[in-house]
Structures are given as structure tokens and as C-alpha cells.
């Protein structure tokens, strides 16, 4: 059913304990993650809950799910919820996990959003949100650098990063075109080559 796998890969399928985990438990687990995780730290919360506390995934399967979540459209947090929920209990598990991880934040942001709509010109509200926005810039920059640090050792990667930033931030090219041009070009640069079994010059 599956091709020979390299030694570092987890065995495909055979999800950990499918059927053994109740939908209610999935919902509550992701609800707690959704209510307590902030900012760029959601991966740490997920790992803590799913690998360390619940033991639903081992470390390798967690990382492979995370790789998928990051390579696909959508947020890492919701993608992880959907992928893990699906592996535990199929589509219903995926929906339940997704609702769990988004509902606390969704409820709270609607409360804040409605309050904001009637206080949009309140100087205290504006001052606090200007501070939050500035803090968000710092956090986003730090998370980007943490994720991108290992790419900085490769000239090809640095070039891809610079081209992407230039197209999006300075030439204001539509994201659709950036993804459709830079994406395939980057994959072609790293295409599998005959004779070289590993992808070239992975700085990781």
C-alpha cells in the first residue's frame, strides 16, 4: 500500500488509538488549547497537549502533521486541529477539533469587536490598540526570524525570500501571482535530481 519509507519517516496511517478517543474529549482538548494559546506560540501548546499530555501522537507524527499544516493554505493552528482530529476520529473529529480550537477566540473577539465598533474613536482604546499593534509587529518579526533562521544559511533561500518580499511588499504584486510563480520556481530549484538522493544543501 505504501512505498518503501526512509528510516526517519513514521509508518503511514495506523493512527494512534483511532476510535479510542471520544469526540467530547477531542472537543474539550482543543477548546482548552483554543482558550489558552496566544500568538505565535500555538505550536508549543499543541505539542504539549497532544504529545505530552494526551499521547495521541508521538513526536514524529506530530512533526509530520506540522509539516503538512505549514505547507498548506490555512493557519497552522486550525490545520493541525483538522489533521489531528481527522487522524483520531475521521471527518467528524476534524470538525469537532476545528470548532474547539476556534470557538473561545471567536466568542471573545466578537465581544471585543462589537465593543470596539462603538468605541472606535475613544482615545484610550486607540492608544492601547496602537501599543498592541506595535507589539504585534515585534512578535511577528521575531517569529518570522525564528522560523526563517535556518534558511539564512542558503543563498538560494535568501534569494527566494528577497524576491517574495520584493514582489509582495514593494511591487504590490497580487499574492495569487506570487504563489503561482515563486512557488513552482522554488520547487523546481529543489527538484529531485538523479544521483543525488538527498535534496541539495539543506542547511537544517
Amino acid at each position, binding site marked *: 500500500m505504501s512505498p518503501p519509507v526512509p528510516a526517519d519517516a513514521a509508518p503511514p496511517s495506523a493512527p494512534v488509538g483511532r476510535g479510542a478517543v471520544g469526540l467530547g474529549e477531542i472537543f474539550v482538548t482543543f477548546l482548552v488549547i483554543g482558550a489558552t494559546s496566544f500568538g505565535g506560540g500555538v505550536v508549543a501548546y499543541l505539542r504539549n497537549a497532544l504529545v505530552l499530555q494526551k499521547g495521541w501522537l508521538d513526536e514524529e507524527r506530530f512533526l509530520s502533521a506540522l509539516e503538512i499544516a505549514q505547507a498548506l493554505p*490555512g493557519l497552522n493552528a486550525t490545520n493541525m486541529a483538522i489533521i489531528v482530529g481527522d487522524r483520531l476520529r475521521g471527518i467528524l473529529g476534524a470538525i469537532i477539533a*476545528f470548532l474547539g480550537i476556534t470557538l473561545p477566540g471567536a466568542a471573545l473577539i466578537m465581544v471585543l469587536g462589537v465593543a470596539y465598533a462603538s468605541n472606535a474613536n475613544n482615545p484610550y482604546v486607540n492608544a492601547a490598540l496602537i501599543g498592541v499593534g*506595535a*507589539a504585534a509587529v515585534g512578535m511577528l518579526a521575531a517569529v518570522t526570524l525564528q522560523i526563517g533562521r535556518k534558511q539564512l544559511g542558503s543563498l538560494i533561500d535568501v534569494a527566494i525570500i528577497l524576491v*517574495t518580499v520584493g514582489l509582495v511588499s514593494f511591487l504590490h504584486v497580487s499574492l495569487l501571482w506570487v504563489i503561482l510563480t515563486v512557488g513552482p520556481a522554488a520547487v523546481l530549484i529543489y*527538484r529531485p535530481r538523479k544521483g543525488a538522493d538527498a535534496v541539495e544543501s539543506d542547511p537544517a
Partner: protein
Amino acid sequence: MNENLSVLGVFSLLSVLAVGGGAAVLPETKALVIDTHHWLTDDQFRDIYGLGQVVPGPNMLMVMVIGYHVTGFLGALIAYLGFFVPAGAISLGASRLWDHFEGSPWRAALQRGMAPLVVGLMAAGAIAIARTAIEGSMTVAIAIAVFLGVYFVKRINPAILVLGGGLVGLIALR
């Protein structure tokens, strides 16, 4: 009705374009919401992005507040479904396919090639937010302080730094 369809269209498009997460799609969100549809001003966008930072869970839940500004609670619900369902469906299908390509050299090439693209898109997202959120030396100071805190102090909860930024803003900028 028409506006609800626009909300659905905008956020479904953003959903499938959000390769690499929410930050990657911020510049396009800004362009569509502010320039194309005039749903929000620059300052409102900054404020609503800030709201997304102080709630737990995925910070792109801010799309609900944008939808709410367009057509009320229905708009919020449409934005939520529009932004999360298409990408969610793709994830579900792709994660099932993904395992079948375990060990495929093209799968490795895809991951290897997409990684720097995602980093570039995240950096562009940071630049997009900086262009609306950074004005004056106090905001620069807050951003640098939070950057250093998140990057170098691993054990700190980012939420505390973000709320701290809000508190400093409240005291210094009102």
C-alpha cells in the same frame, strides 16, 4: 446581500492563498479590505488586527470583526466560514494524500522549496502591519522590546508582551 457575497468571496480567496499561515496573507487582506472594498480605514485595520492579537486561539479570527463591520453578525459568520472552511477542506484532503507520498523525492522538494517562500510571505506580513502600526518613536520602541523578548527570552508568554505593549500604549500615547 451583495455585500455578504463580497465578504464570502474575499475571505474564501484569502483562505486558499494563506500558504504559510495568517501573516502571509496580511498584505493581501489589507489591500482587499482597505483599498479594493473600502470596508475599513487604515487605522481601523490596525485596531482590529490588534484585537486579534489579544484574543486566544488563531489570531486571524479578526476576519470576523471585519465581516461584522461590513454586514453585522451575519457578515462575521460568513467571514469565519469563508476564511476557515476552504483551507480546512484542503488540509483534510491533502493530509490524507500526503501520507501516500511518504518518501517521495517530490514531496521533499515541495517542502524544501515552499519553506523560503513561506518565510518571505511572513516577512511581507510583518512589513504590512508595520506600515500601519509603526508611527513615532514609542511604537518603534515597543516593537523592538517585544521582538527582543520573543526572540531571546524563550519562556515568556507572547500574550504578556502583547498586553504589555497595549498597556504602554495606553499610558504613553493616549
